[in-house]
């Protein structure tokens, strides 16, 4: 136990706590102005922060519990968790069971709180894929690849149906990376990547996606377009860039960012939280947060490298991809170099299910790291 405690990745834990603290401050600054503007006393402007605080506490508990447990036990329950996840994704589409908001059916309401099963779908996917791949000691054949594609394809289709394009994209990227780490030959990987891109473009052209989804996905390459159907997404992107651009080197200071205080950036506390960082903390703050998230990802990748078995290695590779891609995608979309999707910034964006999921993921990575070989 003493040896395991000595191997506990304090840097990873500390980074998570630091980024979470920054996230809570940013959520407060991004919601305070709007809540006060609605006539609430300043004290009540903590409402959103308090709600997120509950999920952070729950997440910390989940992270520590998973970190102290042997991750290999997860292998026994991974398929059961996968089945539960598919069931939850089906159930959330059933009227009166799942609840809807902003045109999506993604949530279960539990009292005042809402749970989004698609956030946990990524974690369940990582567990199931890692379990399957680690049990193929001789490597993955085409047959295995087809099975994995079916295994991940079912929840991806259910997630697209909600619709939640962001999670579907992440699940696809996570699968491709895990297959690569699992040793799938390069030519097969190339075919898979090309296939995924073909499916994506077919979905764009075939009318499978809603028009607002297509607008959000294509706006970043038509940022100066006069096309009326793109104006909503262009407006959001414009406000996001205005906010970040006003930050300069050191930012305008906490609670001194007018775009943040006045709620100019739509969905700022969730998908566009990086704009609050850019405006209030500037280039220095934005770089620091990205650096911390990079450090966090690197520690997870390090855990993958030193994992004692393929299961642990694949778990950490999947978790790394989940965290790193979420960070890259989220920060990039606020600055117009990636499509706008509903992917949160890990440990920073407002959102209970996402927070729980990220903490749980790091808990698993901590467990793998503390039980490394050698």
């Amino acid at each position, binding site marked *: 136990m003493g040896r395991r405690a000595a191997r506990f990745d304090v840097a990873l834990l500390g980074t998570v706590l630091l980024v979470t603290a920054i996230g809570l401050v940013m959520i407060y600054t991004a919601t305070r102005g709007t809540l006060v503007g609605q006539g609430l006393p300043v004290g009540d402007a903590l409402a959103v922060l308090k709600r997120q605080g509950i999920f952070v506490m729950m997440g910390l508990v989940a992270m520590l519990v998973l970190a102290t447990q042997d991750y290999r036990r997860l292998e026994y329950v991974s398929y059961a968790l996968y089945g539960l996840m598919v069931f939850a994704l089906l159930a959330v589409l059933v009227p009166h069971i799942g609840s809807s908001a902003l045109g999506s059916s993604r949530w279960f309401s539990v009292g005042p709180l809402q749970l989004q099963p698609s956030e946990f779908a990524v974690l369940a996917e990582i567990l199931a894929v890692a379990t399957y791949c680690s049990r193929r000691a001789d490597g993955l054949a085409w047959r295995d690849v087809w099975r994995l594609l079916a295994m991940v394809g079912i929840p991806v289709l259910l997630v697209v149906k909600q619709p939640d394009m962001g999670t579907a994209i992440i699940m696809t990227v996570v699968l491709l990376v895990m297959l690569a780490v699992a040793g799938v030959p390069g030519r097969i990987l190339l075919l898979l990547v090309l296939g995924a891109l073909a499916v994506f473009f077919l979905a764009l052209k075939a009318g499978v996606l809603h028009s607002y989804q297509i607008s959000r996905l294509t706006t970043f390459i038509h940022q100066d377009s006069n096309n009326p159907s793109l104006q909503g997404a262009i407006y959001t992107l414009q406000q996001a860039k205005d906010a970040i*651009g006003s930050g300069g*080197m050191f930012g305008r200071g906490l609670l001194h960012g007018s775009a943040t205080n006045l709620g*100019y950036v739509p969905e700022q506390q969730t998908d566009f939280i990086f704009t609050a960082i850019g405006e209030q903390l500037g280039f220095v703050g934005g770089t620091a947060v990205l650096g911390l998230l990079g450090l966090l990802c690197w520690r997870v990748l390090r855990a993958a490298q030193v994992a004692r078995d393929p299961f642990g290695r694949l778990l950490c590779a999947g978790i790394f991809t989940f965290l790193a891609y979420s960070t890259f995608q989220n920060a990039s979309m606020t600055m117009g170099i990636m499509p706008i999707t509903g992917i949160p910034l890990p440990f920073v964006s407002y959102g209970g299910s996402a927070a729980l999921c990220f903490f749980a993921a790091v808990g698993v990575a901590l467990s793998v790291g503390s039980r490394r070989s050698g």
Partner: protein
Amino acid sequence: MSRRIRWLGAVMLLCFALVLLQLANVQFRKAAALRNSPNNPRNFVKKFDNLRGDILAANGQVLAESVHAPKGSSYKYMRSYPAGPLFSQIVGINDPFYGAYTGIEQEYNSYLTAHSQSPKTLSQLLSPPPPTTDDVTLTLEPYLQQVAQQALAGISSANKDGAIVVLNPHTGAVLAMYSSPSYDPAPLANPDVAAEEKAGNAVFHSTDAEGFSGGLPMATYNRIFPGSTFKIVTTTAVYNLAPQLANFNYPVRPCTTPLPNSNKVICNDASSPQHAVACGGTIAQMLPPSCDPGYATLGMTIGPTDMVKQSELFGYNSVPPIDLPSAVSASYFPSVTQFQPQNLGLAGLAYSAFGQQNVQTTALQNALVAAAVANGGTIMTPHLMASIHDSNGPLVKSYQPTPWKQPMSAATAQTVNQLMQAVVTTPGATAYGVASNAGVSLASLHAAVKTGTAQTGLPTLYSIDDWMIGFAPANNPQVAVAVVVPYQPSNTYGATVAGPIMATMLQAALNPPPGQ
């Protein structure tokens, strides 16, 4: 596996480097362009965060001012319009969110917003004074504006749309200009975007049953058939451009003979000869009873060239140069070519000569016609700004009256003035016996007027545009007034609907309450 994990790390580094590069690009290279972008909300929020100068009525009453925004608001100041709908169409709004800047708020925006002061002393040259705002004082008299509002509200028919313009004929100062419908500017000054947008849509994108919008002042914007008030223009054309017709004499009869190249006849005050009242004689005999067939024939005799010339001398086909930035229309009189046989022909000119067919005018233009006669033949440039003072008191600018048009000689003006007096004083004339609802007669005010009862031709009960234009006292005119009340019941006349309002306005203008 380890090699591929290392590759993963390399790809991550590349991605994060790309994000940092774009972060630097947005926060440094593109920062200025983003900061100055018209889409940047900060740029219009500044307008809410800065004080603007006051807009005042002639008596100093505050019509627009900047006040502290309510507690909890994100802005320092918001615009307040204490006089509400009474002045809103002239004062306008300053509404950055809706993107609407209208009226005086727009016209004198450069004075009302904070601007640098030019140094007046050596010390100010070395240490420039802080930016200041100016206050704009208007020519409008609040009590007259209120009388106009009440007069239109008191119209007996269900439709109370109308417009009243009161001018000082010697300076062009607008003393009152009120149109119904108007609008309440308060919701448009609300920094709450949703509330303001809803109010904006109600004001600028909706009309009443008659098609009038509160956001577009009828007095300056809507062109309406002038009816027989246009006979002042036709009469002026005779004395001014065709003096050989001064002794024109039209045989007394109910209707014209068939018009050139047409089988139509024009009958007096009726659509058919059976119901028409015979009229005729000299111009002096035709104007008081407003003899339509006589004026139709007179217009054809004057001819298209002089009729077009005279109407344009009065300002038709030109936008009056009043100091309002928008919603001011040019009144319309057809061109000479349009009276050629292949177009409207002389028959068209016959109708135009008494303000029917294609002639359309605004209340402001018709007030300027009356003002021209009242001012000895010169139309002064209509204006709303009287003076501009900086917020510390010193005068920045004051309005200097300037002529706009010279539609007639002083002698012609004198002649037309006397003819218009006869419209009030001659028994049987259209304005004979007309009085305000309070019983003050036009005659007792020594008014000179002309009535107008224009048939719109609409197959509805409310098909008449009622007019009266005039001035008083006739021998020393102090005010010129135009009253238009469109879409009134078909059994009404200019004298019966617009007449009492004219008497009310003249009485109020000539007898202001103490202290005004």
